[in-house]
């Protein structure tokens, strides 16, 4: 699964993107966030407060109940602040 991180999520995780083998049972965005958090270190810090986290699957905004699977590109980022 391709993971992409933006803004302070990227800074805390320590990279902009990566490809990870995510277990099959991690089937939603929320489960993926928890799984990443459990990796500890920068991940634990970045995903400590999921209320401050937003996600996109294949470049579409999604909520944490949305499904994810192996071929997806999943992005995690803070609430947007453009304009």
């Amino acid at each position, binding site marked *: 699964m391709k993971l992409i991180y933006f*803004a302070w999520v990227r800074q805390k995780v320590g990279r902009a993107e990566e490809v990870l083998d995510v277990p099959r049972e991690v089937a939603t965005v929320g489960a993926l966030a928890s799984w990443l958090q459990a990796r500890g270190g920068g991940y634990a810090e970045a995903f400590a407060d999921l209320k401050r986290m937003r996600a996109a699957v294949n*470049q579409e905004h999604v909520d944490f109940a949305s499904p994810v699977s192996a071929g997806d590109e999943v992005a995690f*980022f803070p609430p947007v602040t*453009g304009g």
Partner: protein
Amino acid sequence: MIRVQTEDFDPSAEIARLHAGRSDIGAVASFVGLVRGESHGEKLTSMTLEHFPGMTERELTRIADEARERWKLDGIVVVHRVGELKPGERIVMVATASGHRQSAFEAAEFLMDYLKTRAPFWKRELRSSGEHWVEARGSDDEAAARWRR
């Protein structure tokens, strides 16, 4: 007409894009957002905008399409800068052309409200006390919520 770019833009040229060479456009409403020199009571040295290339253009196009569904428009321009900007510099411009003044105004306001809450841009400020990511504002969510049907 959606653009994400590091370079500055010229508001006159963006407005002209909507009516140059044609005479069926009566009304163009627009909005320009600028970098303020102060934030959280501190002097701002610079602001850096990052975005999600690809998704940004998709979201902006979607927002523009939605505006076109809601109002009868003759054209839309959205230009958003990324990279490092100094106080006083232009960040964003939206412009809308319509036969009706009120439609042009409403559509421009709608575009800004949706852009602020849905387009994947993030601002980082360099202030006297260091670097800070800008926090999303509840007032922007409320502004966007006004348009929900």
